[in-house]
């Protein structure tokens, strides 16, 4: 039983983060509100598209095929590109401005970035709704007779990329301001993370340009048909995975300090190394997306698998830093119990609830991601519903919940408004996770059985296994649960953004900052036990996958994979 002292911050007091956000110039606040609002709109559109898609796959709704794939395209484009990039731009700028303490540098460039991204948003949504359905990867081969669709689709992403570059330039200039003023001679760990993240956003824009500029040129008659789009897409796609994960970990750092006062007990240097590790480990680990490609050699496949084992290093290290810092700080204040110390966290703050459940979702997501990175299992799982089955734990459970948590803390500070119904928002993350568990369990099982990921009618005229439609129905039920819960949260965050009401109370936080004696000699087992459980789960599901693939009534050799 925990007996710790967890003093609550005085009502009405502001953390350093929220105080600095509140003090931002009005022009910065207007820009940031615009970006947060646009990001929420993208999330709402993507959520609606995904929900309808899940219902259609479950057999509850029927569409003409082109309409169904347009909805799927809108889902992917809205969520994976515009929600995740707009929110990253918004978070980069607001955190950089808060770090600077005096607002944004190169503000016109930041506004230009926002304008370009919003223009891209408009173009992409319009062509996705009206053009040939290209799904979110915009493969030109799907519309060889419709260059207009290919061109406008690619143009939308290029505008987004240009906007990202402008936003990143403003973000980098902003975090460098204290040093230019002579107020600091080095970055804080958050400052360095913002600096590296902004650079990575620019590289992501380079990857997007590399993938989509040929499509624009071809549509204008100024270039050859982009036959290599599939390969170029994979480079961007990999960035698309890990950039928001880096942003998530950064937000966890920021929120942990805001909610508990705790900073890393391992020093800023180690945090900087971990953030830099994202940029070091992510690029060489991208090959696992390509294991089914017929042109990939066996040696590249083996090396790609081995390198992919390292893809979780920065995320797990950051998780361990945060959890050990929290636990050690709690124990230094008298907390006891193997996991009992966690009861002292401010769980009635919706940001805390979102962040906590996001960590749970991350562990589940990593477990199944590591089943997929084995090249020998690609012929069982790639291109099946296993992929959306596991990545929604990341996309919805980790990224979306974390970024919504950040908004719950930041948006009231912008205009002094009140957080909408904290008691309701606090309950949503558990509901999101419950829906995701049903969605993921059914989806991953469907993937193991071979259900393809982008098919609306999985019955194949009655030839497919009878379990397939049943599993898709369960996926639809799970999707309904988590989509409704996220929709409630989005509604609450939008109400918060628009709120003019003076808050009656501040969402609770605690003060766990270690005293002069430091964190003491108490152990912190939560982190290592979590990682041990993760590894055990990885072993179990990897073994299940190997056993399944070996039990199939087929012996196969060659053709891009070893089985």
């Amino acid at each position: 039983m925990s007996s710790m002292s967890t003093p609550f911050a005085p009502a009405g007091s502001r953390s350093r983060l929220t105080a600095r956000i509140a003090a931002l110039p009005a022009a910065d606040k207007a820009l940031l509100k615009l970006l947060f609002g646009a990001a929420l709109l993208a999330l709402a559109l993507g959520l609606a598209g995904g929900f309808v898609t899940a219902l259609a796959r479950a057999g509850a709704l029927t569409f003409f095929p082109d309409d169904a794939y347009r909805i799927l395209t809108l889902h992917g484009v809205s969520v994976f590109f515009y929600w995740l990039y707009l929110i990253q731009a918004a978070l980069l700028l607001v955190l950089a401005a808060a770090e600077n303490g005096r607002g944004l540098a190169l503000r016109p460039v930041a506004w230009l970035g926002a304008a370009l991204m919003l223009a891209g948003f408009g173009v992409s949504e319009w062509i996705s709704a009206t053009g040939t359905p290209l799904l979110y990867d915009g493969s030109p081969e799907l519309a060889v007779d419709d260059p207009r669709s290919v061109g406008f689709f690619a143009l939308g992403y290029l505008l987004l990329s240009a906007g990202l570059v402008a936003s990143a330039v403003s973000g980098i200039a902003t975090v460098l301001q204290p040093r230019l003023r002579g107020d600091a001679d080095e970055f804080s760990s958050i400052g360095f993370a913002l600096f590296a993240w902004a650079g990575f956003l620019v590289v992501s824009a380079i990857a997007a340009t590399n993938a989509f500029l040929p499509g624009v040129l071809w549509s204008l008659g100024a270039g050859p048909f982009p036959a290599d789009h599939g390969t170029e897409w994979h480079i961007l796609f990999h960035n698309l995975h890990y950039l928001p994960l880096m942003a998530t970990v950064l937000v966890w750092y920021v929120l942990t300090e805001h909610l508990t006062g705790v900073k890393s007990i391992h020093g800023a240097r180690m945090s900087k190394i971990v953030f830099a590790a994202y940029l070091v480990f992510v690029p060489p680990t991208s090959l696992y997306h390509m294991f089914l490609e017929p042109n990939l050699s066996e040696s590249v496949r083996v090396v790609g698998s081995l390198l992919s084992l390292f893809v979780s290093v920065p995320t797990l290290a950051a998780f361990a830093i945060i959890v050990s810092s929290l636990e050690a700080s709690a124990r230094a204040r008298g907390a006891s119990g193997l996991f009992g110390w966690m009861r002292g966290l401010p769980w009635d703050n919706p940001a805390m609830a979102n962040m906590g459940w996001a960590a749970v979702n991350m562990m589940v997501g990593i477990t199944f991601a590591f089943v997929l990175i084995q090249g020998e299992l690609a012929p069982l799982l790639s291109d099946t519903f296993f992929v959306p089955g596991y990545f929604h734990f990341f996309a919805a459970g980790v990224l979306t919940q974390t970024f919504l948590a950040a908004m719950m803390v930041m948006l009231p500070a912008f205009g002094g408004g009140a957080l909408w119904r904290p008691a309701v928002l606090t309950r949503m993350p558990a509901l999101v996770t419950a829906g995701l568990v049903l969605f993921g369990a059914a989806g991953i099982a469907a993937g193991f059985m071979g259900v393809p990921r982008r098919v609306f009618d999985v019955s194949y005229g009655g030839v497919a296994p009878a379990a397939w439609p049943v599993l898709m129905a369960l996926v639809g039920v799970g999707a309904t649960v988590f989509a409704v819960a996220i929709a409630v949260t989005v509604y609450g965050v939008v109400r918060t953004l628009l709120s003019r009401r003076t808050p009656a109370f501040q969402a609770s936080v605690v003060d766990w900052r270690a005293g002069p004696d430091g964190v003491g000699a108490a152990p912190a087992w939560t982190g290592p036990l979590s990682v041990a459980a993760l590894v055990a789960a990885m072993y179990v599901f990897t073994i299940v996958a190997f056993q399944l693939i070996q039990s199939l009534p087929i012996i196969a050799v060659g053709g891009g994979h070893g089985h």
Partner: protein
Amino acid sequence: MKNDELWLTLTIAAVWAVLAAVYAFVPSLGMPGYVRVWGGGAVLFLLLAGLLTAIGRKARQG
């Protein structure tokens, strides 16, 4: 350890440059896009490292 961020930025640039070089000099890998993206990234982080150095010098000069 004031130079942490500089050597970390240079490490990122170096890793990406090596990656770009591997894809450039082993054409059988068949992925020239990696050369453009990670090569461009290496140049960018080299520039950022230069920026950090310049700002550090300026700060020292007062």
